[in-house]
């Protein structure tokens, strides 16, 4: 096999399957024409170095073939700013706190200071970060593929800016809000599914014992249903970005479920964090862990309550309340 054949074989490997033979025949023919032209000009056959010069000018086989492929990008320039924003939010709100908690364990718990324990922790962190990036990238790639961005961008008109400033549409649902709910919802669903197979009692390096609600797996499934319903709602809101009475009713049911779950957690004991080893200052840490757990459940319960109020107002044809408190609770 001579150099030209080798080059053509290398290009063929990367060419799109359906057009492979046709494209290769044309490339082959035109390169041969160029070689013949050069040979006629010189009055002799081309040497190896001259042939190399011609093929090098044609370029790397992968680059030559790549130019025949359609221009594609996983996440295009329109969605890229939103994609990087969500990545930053997940890093700040989820990954950095996870790392800080891990560092807290390493500092306060001597049993966690071994090379193996630190290695396991860092490995877990790496997997969590990787999964988060994969899920977020996947969601945005799906949005890009369905050209959601193009349709909504084309439907935009400058007049909407004035309308928004003058009087925000009380029944409008910002798409950015739906995207954020969808992405965070999917991350939590994935995380919750990981927990489903876990045992109900955990020992952390003989320092803490975490016991979850004895009614397992009912509360887990309740929370899973709550999270999945939120994801479905975000999907619907993304493609139909305005509230209807039916959808307000559906969200009322979802939020009522969330409220019941949170109240059950607060009535406890849903999670019991106790110190198995009182020497390591773990009693104090267990108190703080319990308190933070109850504060989180309380904030989520308030959020559900706020949204229930808004849903009831929408269902009865009233304008939802718009103030900072409702915005803080994510209930606008």
């Amino acid at each position, binding site marked *: 096999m001579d150099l030209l054949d080798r080059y053509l074989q290398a290009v063929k490997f990367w060419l799109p399957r359906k057009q492979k033979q046709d*494209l290769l025949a044309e490339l082959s023919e035109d390169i*041969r*024409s*160029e070689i013949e032209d050069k040979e006629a000009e010189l009055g002799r056959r081309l040497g190896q170095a001259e042939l190399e010069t011609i093929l090098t000018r*044609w*370029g790397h086989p992968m*680059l030559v073939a790549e*130019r*025949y492929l359609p221009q594609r990008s996983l996440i295009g320039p329109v969605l890229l700013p939103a994609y990087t924003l969500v990545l930053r939010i997940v890093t700040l709100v989820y990954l950095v706190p996870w790392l800080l908690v891990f560092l807290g364990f390493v500092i306060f718990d001597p049993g966690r200071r071994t090379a193996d324990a630190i290695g396991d922790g860092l490995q877990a962190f790496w997997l969590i970060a990787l999964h988060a990036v994969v899920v977020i990238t996947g969601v945005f790639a799906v949005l890009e593929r369905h050209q959601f961005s193009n349709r909504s961008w084309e439907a935009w008109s400058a007049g909407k800016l004035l309308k928004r400033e003058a009087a925000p549409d009380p029944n409008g649902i910002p798409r950015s809000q739906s995207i954020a709910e969808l992405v965070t919802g999917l991350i939590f669903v994935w995380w919750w599914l990981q927990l489903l197979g876990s045992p109900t009692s955990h020992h952390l390096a003989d320092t803490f014992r975490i016991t979850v609600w004895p009614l397992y797996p009912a509360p887990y499934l309740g929370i899973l249903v709550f999270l999945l319903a939120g994801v479905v709602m975000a999907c619907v809101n993304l493609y139909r970005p305005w509230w209807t009475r039916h959808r307000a009713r559906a969200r009322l049911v979802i939020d009522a479920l969330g409220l019941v779950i949170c109240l059950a957690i607060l009535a406890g004991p849903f999670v019991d964090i106790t110190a198995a080893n009182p020497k390591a200052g773990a009693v104090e840490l267990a108190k703080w862990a319990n308190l933070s757990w109850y504060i989180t459940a309380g904030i989520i319960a308030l959020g559900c309550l706020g949204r229930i109020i808004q849903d009831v107002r929408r269902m009865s044809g009233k304008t939802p309340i718009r103030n900072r408190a409702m915005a803080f609770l994510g209930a606008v």
Partner: protein
Amino acid sequence: MDAALFDNLRLELRRGAVVVAVLAALRNEQYGYTLRKALAEQGLTIDDGTLYPLLRRLETQGLLVSEWREEAKRNKRFYRLSADGAGILKQLLAEWKSIDASLTGILKERRRGPSRSLLAGR
């Protein structure tokens, strides 16, 4: 001046012009290699790896038609401008003339000096 920056800008500037040149050159039927040579002789060198995908794209868009035919005992793919391509070429050439006229006007304005044109705008 940064040579890489100039090369990038030059490439951007030429990208649209190459499409017009290819459409214009294919008013007479040619195959890839002779087309490339004809353009190079007119001072418009096109990278080998750029021309063929461009021809395919223009054909997919209906601006060119092609057929495999034997010439000098070898099969070659010949391209020529389609009826739609001729219409588009006419419009593109009008656009080209309009851009040329605008640029000429801007350059004349610049030669007169910025202060004068600012005063003229008041």
